[in-house]
């Protein structure tokens, strides 16, 4: 069940040849008159949880090499962004990691604010933190729930999805939509937290910990779950860094890199929380790290809600932030600004910005070159999934197919973010 060393395909062949030379009996499938099997895992296999393909070379049930093929939902966001005013790029970011859209939205807004030099008031920053941490919880819930499904336990997934639904209802109160949220604006939020939203948030905060504990009771020390996940799909810290891992997958390997702590944005320095790290970088560690991050996110949300400052929920930046609609009908300046913003006639300053946030899967970066026009000259998304998914063949070679499936789900590869 558990794999020993992840060998590359060539190493594997050399390894077997060496064993044969040493006189170790190696049972090869060819001995029984069969050949290696080529298995096409995906693009629409239910266990891949997204559209990407892996062509696996199998010896019996053992994987000896894998070739990932991606790009099935490539939508050329970087190209589209070169023709769009800044506020119209937010809906594109929704569709990257669609399990935690608010983080993408707000990461993009903060990038533009950095370029424009807009200072966002404390209340808006705290609301952003609350929404981003809710999104992180929703993201981790999906990942760990699905990991349960892939190891053969469906019920935990159902318990968690009820809670994800509740999070989506909070999103609905805050921004009007659920999955692709397009939440907030450049300069802050588009509306304040309504009493209903606060009520829903408080109810959820009371309700959720018990559900989470129940889920962890089902899985954390479950013998079957542990046997299926410990030492499965491991990666060392050194290899993970070389592969550009960030986020929970890197922390599971033992590196405590978290953008929220290293380069605090949106007032994360005000909150008291810890970065959980694992030791082996295997599937079980990734699972535990995500669970612990959910608890830490809850801590952050509670602190932010308790200390939610009074004041405006958006920056005083009339050139970039839409005026209230009533004003547009009555006030000439408001009408002009509304018109110019909507038509994308506001020029941005010349500049080159890199801003990164801690997304659900790691460092989500926006590299923006502005030549002073209404659209970005070049916008590059640093998508954590895209960067760490290339390590997948190395992580699964030498293991069995069933282990490869749960390694994939524990890495939380989101096809939208992978392909952009």
């Amino acid at each position: 069940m558990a794999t020993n060393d992840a060998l590359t395909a060539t190493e594997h062949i050399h390894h077997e040849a060496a064993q044969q030379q040493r006189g170790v009996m190696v049972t090869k499938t060819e001995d029984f008159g069969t050949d290696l099997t080529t298995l096409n895992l995906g693009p629409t296999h239910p266990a891949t949880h997204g559209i990407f393909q892996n062509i696996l070379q199998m010896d019996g049930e053992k994987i000896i090499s894998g070739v990932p093929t991606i790009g099935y939902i490539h939508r050329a966001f970087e190209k589209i962004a070169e023709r769009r005013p800044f506020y119209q790029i937010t809906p594109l970011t929704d569709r990257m990691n669609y399990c935690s859209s608010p983080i993408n939205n707000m990461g993009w807004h903060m990038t533009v604010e950095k370029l424009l030099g807009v200072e966002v008031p404390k209340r808006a920053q705290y609301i952003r933190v609350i929404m981003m941490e809710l999104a992180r919880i929703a993201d981790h819930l999906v990942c760990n729930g699905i990991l349960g499904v892939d190891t053969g336990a469906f019920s935990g997934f159902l318990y968690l999805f009820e809670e994800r639904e509740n999070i989506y209802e909070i999103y609905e109160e805050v921004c009007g939509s659920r999955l692709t949220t397009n939440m907030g604006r450049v300069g802050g939020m588009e509306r304040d937290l309504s009493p209903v939203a606060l009520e829903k948030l408080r109810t959820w905060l009371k309700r959720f910990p018990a559900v989470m504990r129940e889920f962890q009771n089902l899985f954390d020390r479950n013998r079957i779950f542990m046997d299926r996940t410990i030492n499965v799909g491991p990666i060392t810290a050194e290899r993970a860094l070389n592969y550009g891992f960030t986020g929970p997958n890197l922390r599971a390997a033992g590196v405590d890199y978290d953008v929220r702590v290293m380069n605090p944005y949106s007032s994360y320095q005000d909150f008291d929380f810890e970065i959980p790290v694992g030791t082996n970088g295997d599937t079980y560690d990734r699972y535990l790290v995500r669970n612990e991050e959910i608890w830490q996110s809850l801590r952050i949300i509670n602190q932010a809600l308790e200390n939610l400052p009074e004041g405006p929920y958006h920056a005083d930046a009339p050139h970039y932030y839409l005026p209230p609609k009533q004003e547009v009908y009555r006030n000439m300046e408001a009408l002009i600004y509304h018109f110019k913003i909507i038509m994308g006639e506001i020029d941005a300053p010349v500049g080159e910005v890199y801003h990164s946030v801690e997304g659900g899967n790691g460092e989500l970066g926006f590299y923006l070159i502005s030549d002073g026009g209404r659209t970005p000259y070049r916008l590059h998304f640093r998508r954590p999934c895209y960067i760490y998914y290339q390590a997948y063949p190395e992580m699964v070679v030498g293991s069995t197919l069933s282990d490869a499936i749960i390694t994939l789900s524990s890495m939380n590869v989101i096809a939208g973010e992978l392909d952009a």
Partner: protein
Amino acid sequence: MTDLNTSPAAQAKAADYVKAHAAISNEQLLARLHGLFGADTFSDVEEPYGLLTATVSRHRIHEILDVLHGEKELLLNFLTTMCGVHWPERQGEELSVVYQLHSMIHNIRLRLKIFFPIADPVVPTMTDIYATANWMEREAFDFYGIIFTGHPNLIRILNVEDMDYHPMRKEYPLEDGTREDKTDLFFGR
């Protein structure tokens, strides 16, 4: 999991470590880079929004990243991201590749750029230093047609294989230029 390092000794050790690896300023970073590679290696040095940016020659970029990867003082050994950029107006240096390095110990970032002519879009690969460069370079090849010599598998990654152009180059408009139904008399498209 989180209580491993709470003993006073461990905390003192951690504090010493943090002091010894206190944040390096951009000036110190630049001075160290000049010491390692010579001051004339880096041109157009600037700090947009606090991130040290410099342009180097494409013939030296591999050496620079290789040395920085093993260098023990700066520890700039994490390749955060890498992407191509197309500048059609710049004669003789139409294409560019931007590398962004990060030192997780000192929390300092460095952005290095190389420029080269579109007629000769050949640059060395970084896959021998960073495994993560593999797909990043394939993406830059796919989007801009940049050839990375020594790359183990330089094929398209996001676009279809039989595509015969590199779509992120500026000469390819996003929309079909012949369409008239989307023309806007006042604001253009």
